[in-house]
């Protein structure tokens, strides 16, 4: 019923693959045919996120899916959101004590890089701050612009049940475009 950092096991133990580490990042540019991309399934690492803030770079594995099992291993993409390069919203979560603790340092104007097995993307932070977890204005999964939205539980350093989330919203600056119909 609860997701937790301290779960000792789950039904999906062992379902974790990596198509990023061994991929040849040829640096796709321009338009990428979707038929040339191996799309990840649940539990697959397909990239890395690097957040440039606080005078350093915080890098985490990017995994498709966002269950507790996945969030212990990296940051997770909500399966009902889009992929980098598709021109819509990418929604990614991470634990506030580990991979996304750095979000508390982020500021508007800073940058986030997403490296995937099919291309590299750069986003600029345009909005940061807390919202209630039920506030749907924090994201738009049907957006016609490519936003990378990172979130984690808030406050960062308070133990207890949290009803707020800290959102870091960024917009695509550079990266290839995916054509889904070719």
């Amino acid at each position, binding site marked *: 019923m*609860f*997701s*937790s*950092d*301290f779960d000792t096991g789950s039904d*999906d133990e062992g*379902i974790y693959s990596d198509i990023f580490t061994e991929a040849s990042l040829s640096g796709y540019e321009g338009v990428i*045919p*979707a*038929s*040339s*991309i*191996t*799309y990840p*399934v*649940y*539990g697959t690492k397909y990239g890395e996120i690097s957040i440039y803030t606080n005078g350093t770079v915080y890098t985490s594995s990017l995994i498709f*899916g*966002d*269950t507790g099992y996945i*969030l212990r291993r990296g940051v997770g993409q*909500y*399966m*009902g*959101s*889009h*992929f980098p390069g598709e021109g819509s919203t990418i*929604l990614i*979560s*991470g*634990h*506030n*004590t580990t991979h*996304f603790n750095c979000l508390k340092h982020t500021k508007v104007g800073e940058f986030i890089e997403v490296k995937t097995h099919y291309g590299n993307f750069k986003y600029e932070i345009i909005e940061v701050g807390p919202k209630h*977890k*039920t506030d749907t204005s*924090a*994201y738009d*999964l*049907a957006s016609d612009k490519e936003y990378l939205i990172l*979130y*984690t*539980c808030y406050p960062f350093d308070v*133990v*207890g*049940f*949290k009803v707020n*989330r800290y959102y870091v919203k960024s917009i695509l600056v550079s990266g290839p475009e995916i054509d*889904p*119909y*070719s």
Partner: protein
Amino acid sequence: MKKIIAVVIAVLLLTLPMSLSAFAAGEINESEKNILDELYEKVAINGKKFIVPTEYVVQAENYFKTVDIDPTQAAEIITYIDQGKEILINSDIKSTTNLKVLPVPDKQKLLDLGKKAVAVTGGTLVYDGSHVKITNSQAQLVFDSAPIIKQTGVEADFTAVIIAASAAAVLFGAAVVVAKKRGLFAK
């Protein structure tokens, strides 16, 4: 059961692919595009319009990117979809744009159709009373109706501890009250 019908609509679409090679081509073919276009708009059946939540449609879209639709087995699945449409056409809903208000018996019928359709491709649909999860024949999760925004802190374990501690405190306090009433505390 609130979102069950919208879920099942997406479920029936997710079951269209029959050839579950793990990493098939990522393009969306014309059949899949037509289905997704219809889902992104209100689904109109017999003058009644239903809305499938965006997050369900996108999950279906992301699943289509990992498989290819094979028309042979799809025919069986399409029969289940047609049966589902009949339920919606014959429903008592007069005018609504939300599937949540369907009667429970209709919701159950659609859920059963979804399970049959998923089973055609060797998948499994599980409904635990609050969420629907679908796994493919390789036990990989391909659909989850869980809330979009997750818990991402350590509060879960602590919540359980707090609940347990609160329960213990209540029991202890009740025991003290009983003891006082019975004069068990010496003055």
